[in-house]
């Protein structure tokens, strides 16, 4: 079995690396459920519209119902994914998108193949083959995705934590060293910053002993990353130190929280 990854990482010829999160089988199944509901609803609408021709000729009415459901079940994914660049109603709702495995533009052939190969992915029922393939393959691809060279990525909406509640406007001794502030921002990764924020948000849920130990470890980690002078750190607890680090990482000097949010 290949090693699974949860991001599609692409390096451009300009040397820029960007990544997109890969969608897992469960999210994709949820999107399919939405799409299935849409197909069913559309089929019902078409059936109601076909009442009139059915009154004129029941044979033609029945035939049109069979053909329209068939066209809908096969064409729904192909048409929407082509015109919405890799999205259907379900994928839009769950913020998923089908993209080329190399980050290139999705081709019509790829859209057709990945949708036709649902025939084998949905065997024996409820996309079992596709689900197992998505679990086993490195980039969570079902067989249709493998054949079409596509992956499904998700763009989750990132929620910025409410730092005003988390970080009361207190004096932050680390702010006295602007050059070290900048260095801290450079050296700390996004994952480390997120971890520190989460620890602060859940601090009241921790046992007292565990809380002390956790913040001691996190503070030690950040101290190792960028050492601040003793006068900036003496006399403050490990938890306060972590709070000050988060303040530096997330807040600008003017007090804004997120530049992107503005």
């Amino acid at each position, binding site marked *: 079995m290949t090693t699974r990854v949860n991001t599609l990482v692409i390096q451009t010829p300009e040397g820029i690396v960007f990544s997109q999160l890969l969608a897992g089988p469960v999210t994709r199944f949820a999107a399919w459920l939405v799409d299935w509901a849409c197909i069913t609803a559309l089929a019902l609408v078409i059936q109601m519209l076909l009442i009139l021709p059915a009154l004129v000729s029941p044979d033609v009415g029945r035939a049109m119902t069979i053909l329209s459901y068939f066209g809908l079940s096969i064409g729904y994914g192909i048409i929407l994914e082509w015109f919405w660049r890799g999205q259907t109603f379900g994928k839009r709702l769950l913020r998923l998108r089908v993209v080329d495995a190399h980050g290139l533009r999705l081709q019509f052939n790829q859209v057709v193949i990945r949708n036709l190969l649902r025939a084998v992915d949905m065997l024996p029922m409820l996309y079992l083959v596709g689900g197992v393939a998505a679990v086993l393959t490195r980039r969570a691809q079902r067989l249709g995705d493998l054949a079409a*060279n596509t992956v499904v990525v998700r763009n989750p909406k990132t929620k910025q934590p409410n730092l005003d509640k988390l970080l009361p406007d207190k004096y932050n001794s680390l702010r006295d060293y602007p050059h070290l502030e900048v260095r801290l921002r450079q050296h700390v990764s996004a994952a480390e910053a997120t971890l520190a924020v989460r620890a602060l948000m859940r601090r009241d849920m921790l046992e007292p002993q565990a809380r002390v130990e956790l913040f001691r470890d996190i503070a030690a980690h950040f101290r190792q990353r960028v050492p601040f002078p003793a006068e900036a750190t003496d006399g403050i607890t490990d938890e306060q130190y972590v709070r000050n680090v988060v303040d530096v990482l997330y807040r600008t000097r003017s007090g804004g929280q997120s530049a992107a949010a503005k």
Partner: protein
Amino acid sequence: MIVDLHRFVAGERDYWTQLESYLNKFETDPRFRMSLEDSRRFHYLYERACAGLARVATFSGEAELRQYLENLVARAYGEIHESRSLSVRLRPLHWLRYTLPQTFRRHARAFLLACLVTVGGILFGTGATIYDPESRSVTMPFGHDALSPSERVAREERGDDRISGHQTTFSSYLMTHNTRVAVLTLALGMTWGLGTLIVLFHNGVGLGAISVDYIMAGQTKFLLGWIMPHGVTEIPAILVAGQAGFLLAAALIGRGQHAPMSARLRAISPDVVTLIIGVALMLIWAGLVEAFFSQYHEPVIPYLGKILFGTVQLVLLILYFAACGRTPEKSKP
């Protein structure tokens, strides 16, 4: 390095918005084409967004901004670096005259393999019916084992019109059912061709078993008159679907090919789509013929007329796939 993030964002936001509006145009209008000036501007905006992303990457606390830029760069990257033809212009006559027959001939070996597997199934079904008549219930599809050929012929010729008033429904059922089988035959190519092989062999078994049953009962003329009008299109359509399935399998296995699997699959995907669209068209025609023509027998339609109709179709089909599109395409100005 960015010292003042807010100032950086304020300075860049207009460029990002411009890039986003270009991308939105691409995404909402597949026919949107840029002028040379637009292309230059788009490329400049893309490079600027790339540079912005590289700078923002140093800000650990700006996950949202970084994600926004990554998304923007990812979308623009696909547009900038895509070198394959993006045209999906509908040119049905050109497609019918050149693309489909040429694609078919390019992969004639896969079609031959599909034929051989089906012939294997036909021989098996024939042998089973001759040497083990009890196998009828297993080998014959659609309840054909319930009636003997003579009983069936007598019933059909009595004019017991089972589908009278339902021809259109029956036709649409046949089209959709057969297309589903064809798509499954193609899709099972992803099982290294094993699934495609089984479907084709299974089809052959049913065909062989039924055919030999009618021949042994002296009903060859009825059989040909019944099968040929639609079968000469329907059976080759399933074989072409098998051809497409074997193409997928060959790309998956990659025997004797040095390109990676993704490149092999990417290379054959236009041909697979061409073949399956051809299959769908053939099955639509076969469905119409089966519902409105094949199910009527003597004395309504003479068997000879039905056999002649089937033979003409078969000859035309062979000529189409063998000879059509061999003349050079007229180059477009």
